[in-house]
């Protein structure tokens, strides 16, 4: 394989990793506040469908993006209502969200199947950087959302570990009683994190329908929502590690399309298992080693009831 094929693969890796990174960053935020949302796939689908439909109808992909944010956020708001205010089971509610989301997106997008789209995000042409040999092709000829996703993940790391709001969010996910006792509004933080997480999942979905494969197909996210859920665990709930993980998983996805041309005799289906298998491995190792500071938030998927006696 020549160097051009490699640069193409690496560039494709970054593009494939981007929607996963958006969704995983969102899920990470929600999980840090103690809310497990298994509805990522559904929220991504609604984001993808709305993003596409609105872009086609308005001719403006930025408006489409806003619609995707709103769609993902509203879906997450249902999950927050059910699990935070009504203390429903988070696993079941998340699954319901995924089923509901794939239904709703299919229902809404029925008449948009396979329509071509001519709007969308163009690759940036950065002075000097884009023209760098090889590096330019790999890193500096992407659309703006690619860069935004990385900045977002880094910002989220800063938010979680370097600000008092991050301290509050993490405390709610670790020990809501402790947070409540010092006057932190547990419900509000959980609502905000869950909804923001949903918006990012919607954004990840829209990235697929507007940039990655600019079209709408039923179930077009094809399990990327679940990969995002896996990625959060793989990254041990740390946004910077999520960036690396997203490109690792993205790289695997990019590789599946190129196996044959690269002359590698490995079924792409075994590659498809890879993200799930390594996530299982990471979760098992972390749990067995009982790393206090590296595991899941202690109160993840536990409802909080102040007057529980």
């Amino acid at each position, binding site marked *: 394989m020549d160097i051009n094929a490699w640069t193409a693969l690496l560039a494709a890796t970054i593009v494939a990793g981007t929607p996963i990174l958006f969704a995983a960053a969102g899920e990470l935020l929600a999980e840090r506040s103690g809310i497990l949302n298994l509805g990522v796939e559904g929220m991504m689908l609604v984001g993808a469908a709305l993003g596409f439909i609105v872009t086609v109808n308005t001719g403006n992909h930025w408006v489409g993006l806003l619609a995707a944010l709103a769609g993902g956020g509203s879906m997450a708001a249902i999950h927050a209502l059910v699990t935070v205010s009504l203390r429903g089971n988070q696993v079941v509610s998340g699954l319901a969200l*995924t089923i509901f989301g*794939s*239904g709703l997106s299919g*229902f809404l997008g029925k008449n948009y199947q396979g329509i071509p789209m001519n709007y969308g995000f163009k690759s940036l042409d950065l002075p000097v950087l884009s023209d760098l040999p090889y590096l330019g092709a790999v890193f500096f000829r992407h659309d703006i959302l690619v860069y935004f996703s990385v900045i977002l993940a880094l910002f989220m790391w800063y938010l979680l570990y370097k600000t008092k709001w991050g301290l509050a969010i993490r405390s709610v996910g670790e020990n809501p009683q402790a947070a409540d006792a010092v006057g932190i509004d547990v419900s509000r933080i959980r609502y905000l994190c869950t909804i923001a997480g949903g918006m990012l999942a919607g954004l990840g979905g829209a990235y697929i329908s507007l940039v990655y494969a600019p079209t709408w197909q039923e179930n077009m996210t094809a399990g990327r929502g679940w990969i995002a859920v896996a990625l959060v665990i793989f990254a041990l709930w740390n946004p910077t590690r999520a960036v690396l993980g997203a490109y690792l998983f993205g790289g695997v996805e990019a590789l599946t399309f190129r196996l044959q041309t690269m002359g590698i005799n490995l079924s792409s289906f075994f590659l498809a298992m890879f993200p799930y298998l390594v996530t299982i491995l990471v979760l*098992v190792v972390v749990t067995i080693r009982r790393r206090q500071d590296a595991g899941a938030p202690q109160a993840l998927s536990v409802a909080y009831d102040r007057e529980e006696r």
Partner: protein
Amino acid sequence: MAKIKLIRREKESPLARVLVPVTSVLMAFAVGWIILALAGHNPVLVYQKLYNGALGSSYAVSETMVKAIPLMVAGLAVSLAFKMKLWNIGAEGQIYMGALAASWIALNLGQSSGPWLVIPLMMIAAFAAGACWGLVPGVLKAYWQVNETIITLMLNYVAISWVDYLVFGPWKDPNSMGFPLTPIFAPAAQLPTWGDSRVHLGLILAMVIAIIFYLSIQYTRWGYEVRVMGESSAAARYAGMNVTKNIMLVMLISGGIAGIAGMIEVSGITHRLQQGISPGYGYTAIIVAWLARLNPLAIIMVAFLFGALLVGGFAVQIVGVSFSITQVLQGTVLFFLLAGEIFINYKVVLAHKEVL
């Protein structure tokens, strides 16, 4: 300012326990009505089609039954794990593994042996494969407290990819014209059906599993242990029960039953292994189990309702509505149910300004 306030009930409200699921279903249809109307459809017509498609004729009822069978079996499978508060959301993967193992038997022995050998062997193989898929998270949970929700979920995709690999690769029917399918099973590997309908022996099997499930949970020593362990592992240890062993055992049986659901599907309906052998039965089964409050006899009925929804979903496509509407309805039912559960355990009161 009036504010909503929740007060934990001393006792579960028995009225709410019945009303909540029924109301949830009705409310979901009401929401579906609004969505349909907003999308410019005629809800009356759509629901009429849905009803006729699912229950309007004996053929429709038989098709509903066909869809309900895997939901019953998988619903029972997850209920067993849920009884012990083990969140097995891996029924989907366990179904795929069961289908895979059963197909392996069917493809290798189907031609040369009779149904009395092949069908039981397929069943045993499916149970064993599903059981393995349940046992892995079970062992990890029992010995190291690894979160079973995530592991079972991740294993779903491993199983699906594995089946994809086989039907696209080594097991692919050379005459399939490129479709991801295995060759059709020999008659000996096919479950007998009722008359000329597609309703197959799996229905009886589902009923039998439900009855065994009910009797063993309510009336056997092991069932008593499961009920105790599901409520409190500290109490179980105090009673001298082996919690570690039972976590593994329950995950094994739960996975095994889900595996049977996969076998039933390939042996009773498709008669071959193919891509997407389960269109999410494993997830829908979780809704079914939840809606039935883990009661095995209720699972049979709720599975029938959801089977009707699936079959009706195909019928509404005639009037230009996407099949997806059934998923919208399914998800909505579950939301209302989860939201409604609070009425079972809590009293909801309007709290006015009471303290200065």
